[in-house]
């Protein structure tokens, strides 16, 4: 097990090193093959681990070496393999591999050197994420946490010649850093109270922590999760992260990065279950984010932006699940969401590829007949995310909503409203893109083509997973067995459930499905035949501009900070510090210029000075006693 885990983690790292260091020597083929092989091998190893665990191998912690070893704090570099991390391993390496495969065709237009750089970053991304989920303590998790932050920065700013992309990359990094601070403080707090940050020790000692400590730690951890998993108020980086290549968006949104926050809270479920206040906060923030970003997604016209806001919204659902104690449901939704969101993003990538980097859905339409495979798979993804049974999204979303209903029916009502919006904007996107008439230029229409096999195969695989992925968690009421819940039961302590009556549960499902179906039909009828999307007015305009949140942040945070920076730069630095330092120089300069005048070259002047000095010296010499006395008595 020890070697197996090391292999899983180190293979992508080797891929990163080889592709990164020899990026000028590789060909398209060798680079793509190396990158895909490492991830595929990792995936196979992960599958073996997963299999071993489901065969009854117990979870274990394997220690490699001492990472930090001081008198009072010992942090081992150790991996913890249990059912939760094994499941994440599968998602990360599996979907990661499909995205690698897809990228090898999608990124063909890049120069070989940048192609290799791209795959190096991609491998590093997977490596960091694996480190994050495998770490046996919060420190190792934090290393991976920072690693994915770095990789997202590198990949969002992959086309670094475009300044706007660089700004988006910086925004992502800074937003993440704000969250990271919370995470870091939580780790410090844990270490200060318990002396170490190993999961096993922390969870075993929860009862030793005071209620205030637990609340503070969980809140701080949640701040970290907010940054990484794009929750209000730190979500604005995720839509901007669309600046990166499309497969990167798929990777960030599906397999890595944004799921880190969910993983962290699911991993810390023991802590969160002990902090009721934090749970309320998590649920409320999650629900608000889900609704808020769903409203924004309704009016976006960039195919990737719609998907980005839908990710934020779905992450909100996961946090709602975490907040109401449905940790299994949240992790389940992470899994199904990884399937259909990767599918949707890769499908969008295929569309963008066919449209020659056109992302505006107003210029698309009628792509159904040109891109048959993309169309079918995209449609399946849309149905899955809308929560129509028996597609995967239905089961996971329903589990979260049922748990929310148990906690508070209001949560459920708002959640269903969000689900309706999800269905609406997804099918608005689908209808405007694939149905109706083509609205682009003649030239574009001429070039429309289905993507190569390396891009369609991942789409097909993901479509199949999106359709059947939900069956691992069929709720009891539908006569199924919650396999995932059973699988995770060793890690996630099941909450004491007062199970809902079956009738209630049927009703809840019925309502959410009915609402989603109505939204779908409405969206399709509304948008499939329209020749042109009219410009938004009124509330629509506000939504199109994302509630002006970016502008708000600019006004209340960015601009004052810039002004403060400008103040320090122009006033404090220029006239204060520079003025002081230069002033000393200028003063010495001035003084020496004045003293230089004494050396006039006039012999008479020299002699006069000599005589005067001699007189003064004689005077002092003769009267030294009196002068001494005068100084002593008068001055001291």
């Amino acid at each position: 097990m020890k070697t197996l885990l090391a292999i899983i983690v180190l293979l992508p790292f080797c891929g990163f090193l080889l592709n990164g260091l020899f990026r000028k020597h590789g060909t398209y083929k060798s680079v793509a093959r190396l990158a895909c092989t490492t991830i595929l091998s990792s995936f196979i190893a992960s599958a073996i681990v997963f299999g071993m665990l489901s065969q009854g191998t117990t979870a274990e912690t394997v220690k490699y070496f001492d990472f930090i070893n001081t008198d009072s704090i010992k942090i081992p570099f150790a991996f913890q393999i249990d059912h939760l991390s094994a499941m994440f391993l599968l998602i990360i390496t599996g979907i990661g591999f499909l995205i690698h495969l897809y990228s090898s065709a999608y990124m063909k237009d890049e120069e070989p050197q940048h192609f290799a750089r791209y795959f190096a970053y991609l491998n590093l991304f997977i490596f960091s994420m694996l480190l994050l989920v495998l770490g046996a303590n919060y420190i190792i998790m934090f290393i991976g946490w920072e690693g994915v932050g770095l990789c997202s920065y590198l990949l969002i700013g992959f086309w670094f010649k475009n300044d706007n992309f660089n700004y988006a990359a910086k925004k992502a990094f800074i937003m993440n850093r704000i969250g990271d601070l919370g995470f870091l403080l939580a780790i410090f707090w844990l270490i200060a109270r318990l002396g170490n940050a190993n999961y096993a020790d922390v969870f075993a000692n929860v009862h030793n922590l005071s209620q205030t400590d637990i609340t503070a730690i969980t809140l701080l951890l949640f701040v970290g999760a907010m940054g990484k998993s794009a929750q209000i108020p730190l979500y604005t980086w995720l839509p901007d992260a669309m600046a990166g290549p499309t497969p990167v968006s798929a990777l960030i949104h599906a397999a890595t990065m944004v799921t880190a926050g969910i993983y962290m809270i699911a991993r810390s479920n023991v802590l969160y279950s002990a902090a009721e206040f934090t749970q309320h906060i998590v649920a409320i923030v999650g629900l608000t984010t889900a609704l808020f970003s769903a409203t924004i997604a309704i009016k976006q016209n960039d195919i990737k932006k719609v998907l980005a806001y839908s990710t934020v919204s779905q992450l909100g659902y996961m946090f709602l699940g975490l907040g109401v104690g449905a940790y299994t449901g949240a992790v389940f939704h992470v899994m199904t969401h990884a399937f259909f969101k990767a599918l949707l993003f890769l499908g969008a990538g295929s569309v963008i590829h066919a449209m020659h980097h056109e992302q505006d859905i107003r210029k698309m339409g009628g792509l159904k007949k040109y891109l048959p495979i993309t169309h079918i798979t995209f449609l399946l993804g849309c149905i899955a995310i809308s929560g129509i049974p028996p597609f995967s999204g239905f089961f996971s979303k329903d589990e979260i909503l049922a748990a929310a209903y148990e906690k508070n029916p209001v949560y459920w009502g708002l959640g269903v409203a969000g689900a309706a919006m999800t269905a609406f904007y997804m099918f608005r996107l689908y209808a405007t893109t694939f149905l109706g008439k083509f609205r682009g230029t003649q030239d574009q229409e001429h070039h429309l083509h289905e993507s190569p096999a390396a891009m369609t195969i991942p789409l097909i695989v993901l479509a199949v997973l999106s359709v059947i992925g939900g069956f691992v968690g069929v709720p009891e009421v539908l006569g199924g067995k919650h396999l995932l819940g059973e699988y995770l039961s060793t890690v996630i302590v099941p909450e004491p459930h007062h199970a809902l009556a079956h009738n209630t549960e049927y009703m809840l499902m019925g309502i959410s499905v009915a609402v989603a179906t109505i939204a779908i039909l409405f969206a399709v009828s509304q948008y499939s035949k329209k020749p042109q999307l009219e410009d938004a007015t009124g509330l629509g305009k506000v939504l199109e501009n994302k509630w002006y949140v970016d502008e708000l942040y600019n006004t209340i945070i960015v601009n004052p900070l810039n002004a403060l920076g400008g103040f320090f730069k122009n006033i404090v630095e220029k006239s204060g510090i520079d003025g002081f330092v230069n002033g000393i120089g200028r003063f010495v300069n001035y003084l020496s210029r004045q003293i230089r005048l004494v050396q006039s070259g006039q012999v008479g002047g020299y002699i006069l000075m000599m005589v005067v000095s001699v007189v003064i010296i004689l005077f002092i010499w003769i009267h030294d006693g009196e002068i001494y006395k005068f100084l002593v008595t008068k001055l001291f």
Partner: protein
Amino acid sequence: MPIQYYIILSMVIFCIGIAGVLTRRNTIIIFMCIELMLNAVNLLLVAFSKMHYAASLNAPNHATVGSEGQLFVFFIMVVAAAEVSVGLAIIVMMFRNTHSVDANFLNRLKN
């Protein structure tokens, strides 16, 4: 003759020398003034030497005081003569270069 007369005379001559050095611009006159100061000191040296000699003759223990001060003056005069020759040579060279003996032309040390 009391020693005070000599002292006052020396001081007067010395001050005339200083005043001349400070106020005149002609190098030859400055040079002469320097000689004045030198000789004022010489005069004082001789006067004190004579005074001590006279005092030692009247002293009860007959401590002999020589005339080293007066001998010293001769040495000073020899050195002064050498110095004058050097100084005059400098003035001659200066006149050759600048066609003037004005000390204010010698301001090359400036800057």
